[in-house]
């Protein structure tokens, strides 16, 4: 494999340690497209179980160069992060802490490789950072996401307030099943249960009906949401997402079937903004890896993700090798 250690610097002067992989030089002597796979959470440039290494072959086989990026304060890179709680760290990522690192990486790709068109993204926080960075960088021609979060972590809110209908529906089934279990009643009567969560899970269906009525009353097919945004929705998400769509940037949204993030995406973004999203259906692809967990830890799930990635690349970037 043709790989090269890349040490680049962000605008603050931190050394960012990255790994570059060039496609086969005989088949693709002059790549014109690169993908930046961005550090997911704290799992650095390899991602959980080296997921990025497993997926990058799909890009390389299509003549797309790969740069796996460590953000400042994470992985091997320089820089200090002050958070001691993971949710607080994730929140800072979700608010765009690392978009300057992405810009530095794109600059390196353009300066050192002469490649002016890039795809950005990755898993979870890497996907979101790609989205937020792309809003400000016209060199980004595609957004590649696996399990992109639409909500902010570390809000300090009670979890019952921020759960999706899907999550609450699932919980409701579990609570109903527990009615026949003496242990559960003992827990309930000893006040060890989360009463607020139980109440919300049991009442969510009627709330959803009321919400649907409110949606029907709303007018217009604009990027204005049909319902009030969820309290923990990342306010940067809709703005950046629609900016990419207006620029006709293809977006792949891969979600795992057993991950709450698909529910969150649907209920907190896709449904309220359904009207605004409709004109861009041709460039917005939402796909599922059935039954998969957040990090795609089964080889079959990785293979499925790679297959769907390949199909998306072939659909939108077939000219990568020629241009």
């Amino acid at each position, binding site marked *: 494999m043709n*790989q090269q*250690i890349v040490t680049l610097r962000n605008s603050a002067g931190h050394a960012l*340690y990255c790994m570059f992989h060039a496609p086969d030089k005989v088949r693709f002597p002059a790549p014109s497209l690169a993908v930046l796979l961005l550090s997911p959470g704290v799992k650095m440039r390899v991602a959980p179980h080296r997921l990025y290494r497993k997926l990058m072959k799909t890009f390389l086989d299509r003549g797309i160069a790969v740069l796996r990026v460590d953000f400042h304060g994470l992985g091997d890179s320089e820089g200090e992060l002050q*958070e*001691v*709680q*993971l949710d607080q760290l994730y929140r800072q990522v979700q608010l765009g802490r690392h978009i300057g690192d992405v810009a530095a990486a794109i600059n390196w790709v353009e300066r050192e490789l002469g490649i002016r068109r890039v795809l950005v993204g990755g898993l979870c926080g890497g996907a979101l950072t790609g989205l937020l960075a792309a809003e400000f960088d016209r060199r980004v021609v595609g957004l590649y996401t696996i399990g992109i979060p639409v909500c902010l972590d570390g809000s300090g809110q009670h979890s019952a307030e921020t759960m999706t209908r899907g999550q609450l529906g699932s919980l409701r089934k579990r609570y109903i099943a527990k009615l026949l279990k003496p242990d559960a009643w003992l827990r309930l009567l000893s006040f060890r249960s989360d009463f607020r969560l139980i109440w919300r899970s049991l009442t969510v269906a009627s709330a959803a009906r009321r919400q649907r009525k409110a949606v029907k009353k709303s007018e217009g097919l604009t990027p204005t949401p049909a319902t009030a945004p969820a309290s923990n929705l990342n306010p940067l998400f809709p703005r950046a997402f629609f900016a990419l769509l207006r620029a006709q940037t293809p977006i792949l949204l891969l979600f795992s079937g057993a991950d709450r993030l698909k529910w969150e995406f649907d209920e907190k973004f896709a449904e309220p903004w359904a009207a605004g999203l409709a004109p861009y259906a041709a460039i917005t692809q939402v796909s599922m890896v059935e*039954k998969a967990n957040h990090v795609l*830890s089964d080889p079959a799930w990785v293979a499925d993700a790679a297959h769907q990635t390949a199909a998306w690349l072939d659909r939108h970037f077939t000219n990568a090798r020629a241009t």
Partner: protein
Amino acid sequence: MTAVAAIPVTTSEEAFFIPVGEQQIFAMLHRPAQANPSLAVVMCHALAEEKLWSHRIYVKFARRLANAGIAVLRFDSRGEGDSDLEFEDSTLVTRIEDTKAAVAATYTKVAAERVVLLGHRFGGSAAAAAAAQLREQVHGLVVWDPLPDSADYFQQLLRSNLTTQMAIHGKVIRTREALIEDLLNGQLIVADGYGLHKDFYQQAIALDWSSDPAVFARPVLLLEVAKAGQTEPSAKFKQLSDANTSCTCGVVTEPPMWRETRQFHQEAKQFAAQTLSWLGSQWPGAVS
């Protein structure tokens, strides 16, 4: 929020590949400010996802050591990080070979007089086995959270496979005992996304480094993570220090930084403090 002490990067860092046969391993050398450090530490990481969760602790401790005048070489074993091979093609043997290559590269790069191996959990087992083979080339050994029983450790690793079964089938269809049987029959068993195979498993459970006198032919520091209420080394490690005058055992209170918790683990303060103190006591002039 508690502020995390910033460690100034006054030292230099160099990322490079070390050839191992036809493959290569990724390495990061942390050079101290002084030109000729007398002591170098080679750090062997924990296994699989435990490596990733504890990675930043290694990075920051390496920088702290470099600031104390000690050269440090961190590396990714083959099958992990940015090194060659797929995880399922790596074994304990490849990890020992990689450690030996990292020690050789350290001597080449920094011309240190002494090299100490430091390993975390399964990385400690690999470091101990490599130290035994390298004999006088390794002058000290530090193991954070040593694993006295590899078989038990692998049983714990398989827990994530059961979780995956629940996701796919809605129930556990292969118990851990059945998975071990499958493993021994040549099947690849996936845990946390990492493929475990028979050779690796058999090599790992056969390794009994704590009974190997060659491991203790140098100063050894074993730092056990305290269980609830524990203040003294457990019997197993107490016996080791009683039987080997070179061996010091300690107990530290550290959170489980090798797995997902709610904390962002950047430092292992007690591991770090006790290790630095021990290095200073063993080689007084080497630690500033």
